[in-house]
């Protein structure tokens, strides 16, 4: 794997990184009781060396970390009757390697941080969702938030309408960057969403999803909004999903 690390001067470099972390869960599917907990902590540490006349010398230390904690409570008959809160944190870096330290999270690929690809938080536009085609271009398209870090979370309320056959869910999500991009602020956005699920047959689901995201002042920065002079329009999505597990 090779990461693109932005150096103030273009040089040949080498980066050695270690990922160290842990992941744990209790009753993730509400099968063993009313409470559910899930979370991870993952850090990346190492160093970047740059080459001068054939010698590699340390240019910067790397230390970034990310954490997640999810807690859920099942208040009704089925696993669809629950309220769940999901919190994220990723350290950020505001000056790249200029201070000889890089404190962002290195994920390797979008949301591919060792510890799992996170698409089960219930958000659609602020964080990536497994059922939307643009899941790699969510407002926060990567846990590291392009190295700037972030703190955010989702809150979801799900209620069974017909036990094990239909349920509805509403949710909110919000996040802010740990670092202000040039010309912008920290607030990334606030999302509201809803979905309804119906199972017409065994292992068959029909779902209607919808979400709206109010972009924050983070997107006033040209460096993160694609070079636009103004903040982009608030995005929304509405879509229908048909799932059928055939075996």
């Amino acid at each position, binding site marked *: 794997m090779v990461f693109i690390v932005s150096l103030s001067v273009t040089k040949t470099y080498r*980066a*050695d990184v270690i*990922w160290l972390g842990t992941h744990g869960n*209790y009753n993730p599917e509400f*099968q*063993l009781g009313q409470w559910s907990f899930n979370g991870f902590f993952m850090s990346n540490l190492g160093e970047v060396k740059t080459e001068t006349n054939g010698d590699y010398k340390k240019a910067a230390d790397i230390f970034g970390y990310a954490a997640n904690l999810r807690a859920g409570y099942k208040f009704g008959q089925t696993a669809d009757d629950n309220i769940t809160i999901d919190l994220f944190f990723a350290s950020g870096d505001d000056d790249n390697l200029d201070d000889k330290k890089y404190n962002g999270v290195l994920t390797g690929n979008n949301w591919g941080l060792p510890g799992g690809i996170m698409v089960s938080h219930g958000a659609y536009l602020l964080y990536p969702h497994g059922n939307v085609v643009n899941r790699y271009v969510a407002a926060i398209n990567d846990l590291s938030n392009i190295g700037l870090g972030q703190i955010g979370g989702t809150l979801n309320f799900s209620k069974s309408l017909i036990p094990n056959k239909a349920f509805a869910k509403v949710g909110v999500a919000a996040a802010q960057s740990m670092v202000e991009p040039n010309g912008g602020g920290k607030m990334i956005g606030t999302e509201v969403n809803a979905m309804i699920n119906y199972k017409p047959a065994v292992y068959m689901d029909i779902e209607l999803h919808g979400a709206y995201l109010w972009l924050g002042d983070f997107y006033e920065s040209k460096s993160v909004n694609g070079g636009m002079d103004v903040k982009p329009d608030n995005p929304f999505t509405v879509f229908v999903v048909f799932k059928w597990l055939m075996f």
Partner: protein
Amino acid sequence: MVDVLVSSLIIVELKMRKTKLYISIFLASILIACSPYGNLTKMEFEELQYPFEVNKVELEDGRKIAYVDEGNSNEVIIFVHGLGSYLRAWEKNISELKKEFRVIAIDLPGYGKSSKELHPGTPEFYSDVIAQFMDALEIDKANIAGHSMGGQAAIALSLKYPDRVKRIILAAPAGIEEFTEGQKEWFREVMTVQGVKLTPVHQLRANVYANFYNMPDDAEFMITDRIALREAEKFDNYCYTVVQSVKGMVDQPVVHLLPKITQPTLIVFGENDNLIPNPYLNPGFTADIGRKGNELIQNSELVIIPECGHFLQFEKPEVFNEAVRNFLR
């Protein structure tokens, strides 16, 4: 149980170097499974602890039936447990109802402390067993209470031996919910002796939890007993019995025979039963199943217990016991 996956250390070398390899090893991912059941020791079926004196009687065919017999009254209730269960399923009911009735709870053949000969496991087979059991105890007629699969057995008994059944108490009974031929075939194929035998601990726990809306702490023995029995000498026979019992229920449906029941019948369901109707095959409201049984059984009354799951007589024993008292008075 707390499962903790510790990805202890992952070292990835980003750029392989000939002269100076940093460390290109993948040390380990350590799976630590912290189980509260680690100290359970192997147990034989005979070592199951029942809170009542256990008796045994030999039937005509040589099978030995374990049972408890409490209370002194001419009004007899025979309790029949459900799939994969045993007579302890009724312990909260026996202890109360014995004050007014003679209460007898049995371990069906293959379950609990009863003998473990192989058998067809059909509702009709169980009805024959109960009839033989009544013969052995010289009970001419009794009230029959059955939970889940035991409810279907009670229905079969009342149909085959109507003169032996005074009244019927059906606690979350199987036999009212209908299955298509395809669904029945699915049950037959998915239930195997090996599958039952090798059920992992977390699934055993989930299976027990699924029986409750809010599992009471004192139901924990249902999990620990099941785990401790996994190496019992007759465990294979028990697993076979479970499989046969499921096949028996789907092979001998009784729903079309419910209108033929003439005995007064009490039907009790937990409003939040996660097993009836089947959550995968026929998801929906449990109360609808109860109402269907109430309509099909001519002389029946229905009680729906709110905030209560499948194991209603254990989860809400006060409500169930009171319903039984009112029904039998």
